Each structure stands twice: as C-alpha cells, then as structure tokens.
C-alpha cells in the first residue's frame, strides 16, 4: 500500500513540471496565491501555428541544425567507432573522446570562438553546427564503440568469405544489424544540438537564434508565458520519442555503464 502510494506520488512529481509549463503557456493571468490560472488564452500557440512572431522559423532552424548535426555525427561515428573499437589504443582514444565533456560547454565555446572567428565561421549556422559536432561526434563514437564486438567481426568475416565486397558488407550486413542502435544515436546526438544553449550563444555570436536562445531571451525579458511555450516546443520531440519507444533514451543510462568498475 505504502509502495503504491509512493509510486503514484513519484509519478505525480515527475509529471507536475510538464503540467505547470502547459498551464503557464496558456495562462493570461495567474495571480498569487491561486493554484491554477485565473484566465486562459491561446495567443502564444495561435501565433506559433500562424507563423507570426518568427517562432515558426526558429523552430524549423533549430530542427534543421539538430537534424544536420545528428546525421553527420551518426554517419561519421559509425565508421570511426569501428576503427576505435579495433585499435590497439582503444582505451586511450576513449579517454580522449570524453575530454570535450570535461570542460563545460562555456569553456568549449570560449576556446573555439577565436578559431571560428579566424575561419569566418562565428555568427553562422555552419559554425554552430561544427561546434556542436565536436560534442556530438565524440558522444556518438562513445555510444557506438561497444557495438563492434567479436560477433559482428565474425559476421563481417563471413560476408567477405562468401564474396561480399566492402560496400556490400557495410550496406547489407552492418547497417541493417546496427539500425536500432543507430536510431538511438541519431536521437541522442539530435538532443545534444537541440538542447544546446552555450555554444549557440557564443559561436552564434548573437546571429544564430535557436529555441534555447529564444527561451532565454523571453525568460530574461520577464515573459515567462512565451518562455514556457518555447520550453514545451523544446520538450516535444524527445517526449514523442519517449512515448514511441523509451528504449531510444535508455542508452543515456546504459552508456555510462561502460565506465563502471569491473
């Protein structure tokens, strides 16, 4: 009985912030000390759906940046992770790949900015994507490297022994086998870009506006309703993924298991 009550309470606590954001995004007024908004309005959502106020463009831009970074990172990491997994210095390479995550994204942004200014990449979408790729590519390799086990190696060898060319091995053996994990990787790397604020702020140099940047702008200008609307838009894609298949996110927990003491 107590356990059931705890399960229900915990479920409530986990859903509460989402409900609160939803209410905030449709509240016209929410005076103290009311627990629910006094009046509701749908202005923010109507404006968004009508594409006025530029929020629609920002959503599309953020989605485009996220999709581009995820596709690039996953594609490159699929090939690179194979080489890392079979390299004599695999452990050292993996340590190296964790380093971009050690310093905070602010330090990463600050350190990359001078280089990106020199390369005329600062203030451009391409520059923001490249900066995010540093994190996304490294993360994707860390995620995929464990997949290249001896069983996969045997299947590769078997395909070659049966006459498959290099291209066939990749397209007809490895890609179909790895598809579920590649989907996980695509989502996770998309989220790295989709959630990024600091790198976009610093490398974007105020010229690249994404949803996280817009959320901060609304927040600092005191418009918490529009900030909540942005927050819900930020949460929508990963929550959809969670509803469709929560295993797409479980890698977030499984990946660090590689770090555990044996």
């Amino acid at each position, binding site marked *: 009985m107590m356990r059931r009550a705890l399960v229900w309470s915990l479920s409530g606590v986990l859903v509460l912030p989402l409900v609160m954001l939803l209410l905030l995004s449709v509240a016209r007024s929410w005076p103290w000390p009311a627990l629910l908004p006094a009046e509701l309005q749908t202005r923010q959502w109507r404006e968004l759906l009508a594409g006025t106020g530029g929020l629609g463009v920002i959503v599309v831009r953020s989605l485009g940046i996220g999709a581009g970074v995820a596709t690039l990172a996953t594609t490159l990491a699929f090939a690179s992770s194979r080489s890392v997994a079979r390299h004599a210095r695999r452990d050292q390479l993996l340590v190296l790949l964790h380093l971009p995550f050690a310093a905070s994204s602010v330090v990463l942004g600050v350190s990359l900015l001078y280089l990106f200014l020199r390369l005329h990449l600062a203030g451009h979408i391409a520059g923001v994507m490249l900066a995010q790729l540093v994190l996304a590519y490294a993360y994707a390799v860390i995620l995929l490297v464990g997949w290249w086990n001896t069983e996969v190696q045997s299947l590769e060898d078997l395909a070659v022994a049966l006459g498959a060319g290099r291209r066939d091995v990749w397209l007809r053996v490895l890609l179909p086998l790895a598809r579920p994990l590649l989907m996980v990787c695509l989502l996770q790397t998309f989220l790295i870009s989709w959630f990024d604020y600091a790198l976009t702020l610093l490398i974007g140099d105020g010229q690249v506006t994404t949803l996280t940047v817009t959320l901060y702008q609304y927040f600092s200008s005191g418009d918490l309703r529009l900030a909540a609307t942005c927050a819900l838009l930020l949460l929508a894609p990963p929550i959809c993924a969670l509803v469709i298949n929560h295993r797409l996110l479980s890698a977030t927990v499984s990946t660090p298991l590689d770090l*555990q003491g044996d």
Partner: protein
Amino acid sequence: MNSRKGLDPWIGLLLVVTAAPLLAGLGFMLLYSTGVIGLLAEGFTLRYWVRVLLDGQTWISLSYSAAIGGVSLGASLALAFALQAALGGRQRKGALGRLLFLPMVVPPIVAALIGVELLGNAGLLARLAHAIRWVDRPEDFPALLYTPSGAGIVLTHMMLVVPFLLLLLDRLALHESVAALEQVARTLGASRWQAWRRVRLPVLMRASAAVLGVYFVVLMGAYEVPLLVGAQYPSMISVLIQRRFSQFDLGTRPEAYVLASVYACLATGLLLALFAARARKRTRERGA
C-alpha cells in the same frame, strides 16, 4: 583486437573534428591570455594570469562550483538510494518505468525555468504552502532562488539527476546481482539494514564510482541552471567565465581566457585522474 599500422583515416577524422579544435582552442586561450594575440595585445605578459590567480573571486568561484557539484550529486545519490530501497523494483514497472526517463529529456535551460516557477517566492510550492496556511505572503516563503547558499541550483539539479541515478543504480544492481548477494547475507544472519549497508551500498558505490566522478565534473561546470537560478555572487565558474567574456570592456577578455584555461586544466586533470585510477584498478584486478 587489430593493431593498425599508420593512422586510420576514420580515427584521423575523429581526432581532427573532436580533439584538434580543443587543442587549438586551448592554444588560442593561452596566447590570448598572455597578450600575444587579441585586439588589445601588447606582447607577451603574465599580468592577466597574476591578476586572476591572485583574485580571491577566482578561488571562491572554483570552490563554490565544486561545493555545488558535490552537494547536488551527494543529495541526489542519497535520495536515489532511498527511493530504490523504498520502491523495491517498482521503478521498472508500469508508467513509472517510462516516467523516470522524463527528466532526461529536459534540457538544463528548461529545468531552470521549471525551478523558477516551482521554487520561487510566488512559485507553485509557495502557493501550496499558502494553501495549507503555512505562509500568508510570497515573501514569507523561504528564499530558495538567487541565494548564495545555492539551494535553487542544488534543487534544480536534483530534479534532473535523481531519476537518472535511480535508473542507473537499478541497472547496476541487476548487473551486479545485488539482490542475490543480499539474500546470501540475510541467510547468514544479517539484518535488512546490515545487508543494505554492508552489501548493496558498497557494491553499488564501487560500480558507479567512475560514472559519479564524471557526473561531478559535469555538475561543477554547469552553466544554464546557475545562470538562471543562481546568485550574482558567488557565481559558479562557467557563469563567471561567460560574464567576464561578454563584458563591454575588452580588457576583461584575457582574464576570461585565464579563468577558462585554469578551469579546463582542472576539469581535464580530474577526468584523467579518474580514468587513470580506473585503469590501475583494472590492471590490479587482472593481476589478482
């Protein structure tokens, strides 16, 4: 395992995209912070380094970041252990099994917004406190946000970290067969508390040590949450670096680079020490 001769092009590309920008960035930071390059460069000087290293705010900010990271992680870990014991496996079943993933899809900037709406003086908790007649006015509710204690930062971090740690501990417990080990301890006469304290706790702490270490480094360098719910002073290190970097006075930029270099070296050193300790442990265990 194959030992490759020469540099594999895919590893080369990986290093060019991930490690090379980091090293180049660090190089630029060092050159900028020593006055060799930059808009106001006047030739090599260590005055920015001396100024930052002698500035008490640098060390306060670093210690504050470490303390906030440590307290956030410690409190989250304690709560995750308590919930694991109280739920007894129910976290794997039904809706809760999926809902625990929910905080993992919340970016820090949204978590900060939720923190403000939940923990602020006119937030939902304050309104609930009013509903149960604990407070009359918003200012009667204890200040949790923008305070030097960092309570708002810790609580917001906990919202994100506790579910992750609960899921992690659960998976580790299954992986390490902790339930079976506890059962053996109980059969040998251990009480429930003794089985938890002498079996579950040490096994899971040992298994999760490296992950917790990485998480500590990540929390120490947090940016969005302290920016939105933290105090102006003391600031966590990422916020301090960003503020110095974005000031109109370009003279503070080399100082921002000094701070960023110091923090990058510290965080990287911590992570490398963590991996080195793990590698030593593995070697010892293989030798045993």
